């Protein structure tokens, strides 16, 4: 396929700013897994996407998740694949990390740590916010 053809295939409509806010622990409820499914499907629409992890949602990105004993699927490797879907803006609440004794080194992907004020400012700039 030539590069010209690839250009022609690109979505031509308006691009909106989509933010997915992940607030829940990865296991215990299905919110984190089903939120990730929306992000992956949504990536096909070529929108301006960012993800926020806050409250217990920061545990979704924790290294070393072992779900064998609970018979749940460990879906955390999928967060490492987000880059291939051009989902590269991952914001994490600094407050939520501090409250849980976590640092960037505990996370499986590179993120940008943000204060509550900075997150509020980012949210203000969005067209669509999906909160899970």
């Amino acid at each position, binding site marked *: 396929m030539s590069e010209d053809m690839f250009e022609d295939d690109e979505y031509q409509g308006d691009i909106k700013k989509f933010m997915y806010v992940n607030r829940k622990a990865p296991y215990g409820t299905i919110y984190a897994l*089903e939120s990730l*499914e929306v992000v992956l499907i949504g990536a096909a629409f070529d929108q301006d996407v960012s993800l926020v992890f806050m409250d217990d949602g920061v545990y979704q990105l924790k290294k070393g998740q072992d779900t064998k004993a609970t018979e749940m699927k460990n879906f955390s490797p999928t967060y490492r694949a987000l880059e291939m879907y051009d989902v590269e803006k991952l914001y994490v609440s600094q407050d939520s990390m501090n409250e849980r004794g976590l640092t960037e080194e505990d996370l499986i992907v590179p993120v940008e740590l943000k204060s509550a004020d900075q997150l509020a400012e980012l949210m203000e700039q969005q067209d669509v916010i999906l909160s899970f």
Partner: protein
Amino acid sequence: MKYAILVNEGPYTHQAADTAYQFAKAALNKGHEIYRIFFYHSGVNNGTRFTSPPQDDRDLVQGWSHMAQENNIDMVVCVAAAQRRGIIDKDEANRHGKDCDNLAPGFRISGLGQLIEAAIQSDRLMVFGD
């Protein structure tokens, strides 16, 4: 204003389902347009016609169905979330070899792309959840 609505919780479990329904009704009464209502997570349980609440309680599923039919609203249940929770239409029942289907009138089953597309097409996406 053109609204898209996302319902993330089931009826009789979480107030979010009722609040979404009341919001949709109020928006229509005020003359706003509802581009689509999308049901996700346990919100897909709003779409089963097998729900039988006690007679002295509200019938939320019937409320959704009437609202959709009277106002010609597109109400979409997420296929992946629905399959996990046993909400199926005739086609899905045939495909998965089930002996009946339970999707309520006014609802249809489709993919998550319908949620993203609705958010793009509408002025506002309203999310009702936990």
